[in-house]
């Protein structure tokens, strides 16, 4: 069990470490747009749109590992005082909520992504790219979030002293 939890955490850590570099891609795309519009006087049709398409995957992939880091915002004024079983129980409540959140996002986003794929949906802009790959990061991140919630639950239940 502990191995499973470590593997999940390692996977999400890896994805976090990959996703964080996307911000520099966004920076370069925006600078390129500024340059081509202002200096070359011919704005690209694709750079700003590509930047917005990267933005979703960027922050979504950060979410699951953030759960491990305890970086999601929480109001801990009351729960910080809890100890023993109560503390474990409260932690589990939070993880169940995260898993439910992920499950519902997954359940409802998969059909939409499939639909986008089968329609060959494009953004209908001057650049007009297909957009299902960007949308697909929502169900992917939802699965990863559920897995991370599971991993954290394993840690809480089987290695309480490490928490």
């Amino acid at each position, binding site marked *: 069990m502990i191995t499973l939890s470590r593997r999940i955490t390692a996977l999400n850590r890896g994805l976090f470490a990959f996703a964080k570099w996307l911000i520099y891609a966004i920076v370069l795309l925006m600078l390129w747009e500024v340059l081509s519009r202002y200096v070359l*006087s011919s704005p690209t049709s694709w750079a*700003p749109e590509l930047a917005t398409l990267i933005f979703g995957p960027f922050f979504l992939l950060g979410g699951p590992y953030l759960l491990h880091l305890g970086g999601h915002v929480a109001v801990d004024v009351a729960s910080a005082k809890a100890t023993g079983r109560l503390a474990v129980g409260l932690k589990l409540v939070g993880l169940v909520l995260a898993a439910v959140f992920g499950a519902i996002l997954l359940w409802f986003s998969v059909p939409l992504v499939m639909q986008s794929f089968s*329609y060959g949906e494009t953004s209908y802009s001057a650049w007009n790219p297909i957009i299902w790959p960007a949308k697909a990061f929502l169900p992917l991140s939802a699965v990863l979030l559920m897995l991370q919630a599971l991993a954290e639950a394993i840690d809480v239940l089987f290695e309480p002293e490490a928490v």
Partner: protein
Amino acid sequence: QSVTKWRMQALWGGGTTPMLYEEKFCARVAELTGGSLEITPFAGGQIVPSAQAFDAVRGGAFELMKTFDGYTAGKIPAHGFSSTVPFGFPEPDQYEAWFYERGGLEMARESYAPAGLTYVAPTVYGQEPIHSRVPVRKIADLKGLKGRFVGLASAVMADFGVSVSPLPTSEVYSALDKGLIDIADRGDIKANFEEGLHEVAKYLILPGVHQPTTATSYVANTRAFDALDAQQKAALAVAAREISGTLRQNILVANGEYIKKFQDAGVEIIDFDPEDVAQARAKAVEAWKKAATDDISKRMMESQIALMQELRLL
């Protein structure tokens, strides 16, 4: 008698004129059905973003939406022709005639049916203007300008030599103000005056060739629609056709009133020569053909071209 309660996601902002007409639409449906169909309208973005309403109605979160087919033209190419066509019909009556007299309505229904949605009826109204920081007196003057357009219009304007930036609507004011772009489309004449575009663009160009006429549409979830009785269905159709006429006339009058306000604010109104526009229309047809990529969209485009030829627009 039982009351059917529906929710409708509209695309307009809360408190705007077209949103008031959606409230009138709902009131009219209630009146025509003797109160048996109650529709609660929600302003654009209040519950889901306007561009996402298609899937929300499909999924059953709403029974009805007032949408702009252009939002889904990336999924369903026909929607490029049932929403607005750059250099298309110059008069809203002509466009509405295509829907009701030349099979446009049936083809629009056909385009929505596979998604489990029922196209009820369009609301058709006239041009949206182009705002410019520089004088543009003929189509050829567009060449070399930096502009903001969306949808098929961005491809057509690019064909006429405009470098198109896909800026969000909320950036139009400041982008014109700071000279990021030379020309832009945004909303209708009244809405653009209220947005303050007269402060940042000293030229207003008519007709708005990028969007000479527009159709927004009432689209229902098919399961919910089929559960209505004949009177309720008829009430939707009647109320929709009424709103199409009343909103169009309201915009017609508002356009006159607000063009005057633009002039009073020191904005020069430039009218393109109709001959110039007609010649450009022939060139725009090339972009239409590229956008018509499946059977329904091709049939829509061809029937529109046929009607335009009869009306001597092409």
